[in-house]
């Protein structure tokens, strides 16, 4: 969004009163229709009216007005997270479900801090980092490593999974549509959605609704197939609340990786920028917090729980367990019996890579603009080039993914995620940045520090592994 289309309220309110704006226009923010201020005023009125509504109608209002949380869930629930959930279910049954609750619980404190920056300050966090902490933190660690490289490199896995699922779905429909051809369909869907975001209010609403309905589709598809398989409710409840880990290094690895990997730099920053894109101000902060719970935390826990339960009820104890998402899905399908159930599972599963590709592409484009100081304009060639950059991963549909690159980026991400967490914690506690809206809560800070410490452990475990100190 250019200066002229920024919501009037934000221009009037500006950043903290004691300081002139550092960042200028806050990232590539899409327009909010012909009269952004009228839209925001209507939202605030709806939120105020919702306070007196009964809980179900209040929740419906929040679901309708939310959005960044759903975008965050779509980002987080990608091929990697779902593969980890499938493997956990097939290997350990229901016993590691509690880690998902811990992961999203600790991540929510940092996301709430992002909501504070979005609603009370309104400046671009990456520009703020650059001004306060230097280009290394803002450009290299946050933008390029934490967001742009992740959007490109981790999209290979999404393409590989997505095109495999399209091929399988075509098989159910009775025709052959192999990956080496169907990547065009995957690309067409994801390009259309990523280019729609920011094209006026209708484009942004289209993408947000697509994310919401895709999450609903994932939930329904996995829940219905699980209904066929059956659930051990006692084991499920125990798995959610009673901590358990396998013995030895394997257990430590599983705990560190699973608890810290759910929410990271890209999720934090995307929530912040998606909130800015909606023009959220002080009166939206409560909505932003509810959005974290309804849009991100609950779908994250629910969908991971369904996937774990599905694989615990079918593949656990069945001997050798496949390691990739596509192989795991292929192994599961015959156990679901009905062809309709199999197709439904594949359809729900297809929503996983598509939504992640779209979310990562948008996050990568925003980061690219912030890193290079480009003027944000969703109709410019720079925006189109940035948002389409992750599409180079279409090679993943018919060629082996570049493992060496994935290892390098995953390694860099492991050892830098925590440092970006330090940066955001410091800004959140800096009275010269947020003024009276800085962190004033001991428990809020504690929650953030728990996540930062978990991310530290990921970085340290990665280095120990490289040095051969971890497994001896």
């Amino acid at each position, binding site marked *: 969004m250019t200066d002229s289309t920024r919501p009037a309220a934000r221009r009037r309110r500006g950043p903290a009163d004691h300081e002139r704006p550092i960042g200028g226009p806050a990232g590539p923010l899409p327009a909010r229709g012909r009269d952004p201020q009228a839209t925001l005023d209507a939202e605030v009125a709806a939120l105020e009216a919702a306070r007196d509504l009964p809980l179900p109608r209040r929740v419906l209002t929040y679901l309708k007005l939310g959005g960044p949380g759903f975008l965050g869930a779509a980002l987080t629930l990608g091929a990697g997270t779902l593969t980890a959930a499938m493997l956990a279910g097939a290997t350990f049954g229901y016993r590691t479900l509690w880690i998902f609750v811990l992961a999203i619980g600790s991540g929510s404190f940092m996301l709430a801090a992002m909501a504070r920056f979005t609603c009370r300050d309104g400046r671009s966090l990456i520009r703020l980092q650059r001004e306060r902490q230097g280009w290394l933190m803002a450009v290299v660690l946050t933008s390029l490593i934490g967001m742009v490289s992740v959007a490109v490199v981790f999209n290979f896995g999404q393409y590989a999974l997505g095109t495999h699922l399209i091929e399988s779905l075509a098989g159910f429909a009775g025709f052959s549509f192999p990956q080496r051809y169907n990547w065009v369909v995957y690309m067409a869907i994801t390009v259309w959605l990523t280019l729609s975001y920011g094209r006026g209010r209708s484009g942004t609403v289209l993408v947000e609704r697509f994310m919401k309905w895709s999450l609903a589709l994932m939930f329904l598809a996995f829940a219905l197939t699980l209904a066929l398989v059956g659930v051990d409710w006692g084991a499920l409840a125990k798995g959610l609340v009673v901590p358990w880990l396998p013995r030895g*290094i394997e257990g*430590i690895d599983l705990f560190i990786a699973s608890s810290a990997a759910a929410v990271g730099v890209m999720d934090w920053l995307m929530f912040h920028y998606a909130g800015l894109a909606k023009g959220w101000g002080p009166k939206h902060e409560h909505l932003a917090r509810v959005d974290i719970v309804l849009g991100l935390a609950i779908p994250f826990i629910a969908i991971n729980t369904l996937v774990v339960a599905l694989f615990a009820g079918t593949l656990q104890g069945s001997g050798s367990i496949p390691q990739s998402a596509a192989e795991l899905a292929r192994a599961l399908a015959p156990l679901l019996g009905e062809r309709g159930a199999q197709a439904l599972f594949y359809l729900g599963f297809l929503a996983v890579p598509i939504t992640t590709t779209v979310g990562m592409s948008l996050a990568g484009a925003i980061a690219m603009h912030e890193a290079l100081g480009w003027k944000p304009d969703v109709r410019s060639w720079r925006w189109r080039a940035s948002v389409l950059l992750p599409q180079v991963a279409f090679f993943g549909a018919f060629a082996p993914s570049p493992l060496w690159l994935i290892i390098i980026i995953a390694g860099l991400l492991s050892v830098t995620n*925590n440092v970006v967490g330090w940066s955001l914690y410091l800004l959140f506690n800096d009275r010269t940045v947020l003024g009276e809206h*800085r962190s004033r809560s001991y428990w809020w*800070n504690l929650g953030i520090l728990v996540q930062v410490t978990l991310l*530290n452990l990921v970085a340290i475990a990665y280095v*120990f592994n490289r040095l051969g100190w971890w497994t*001896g």
Partner: protein
Amino acid sequence: MIDLERRMGPLSVRAWGLVLNFGFNATALWGLSHLVRGAGGTAALAIGALGTVCCVAVLATPSR
């Protein structure tokens, strides 16, 4: 009471606290990896864990 916002060289005390916390995290994990393999490490784990708890408890204090 520690003033976490006071500058100490290039960084604030709060930022140095994060670095110290990282050091204690590494010590704890090094101790844990040895303990799991039955190669000692109890002292390192105890020092690292205690240091981590102290750092996090202090750093959670909001600025005044």
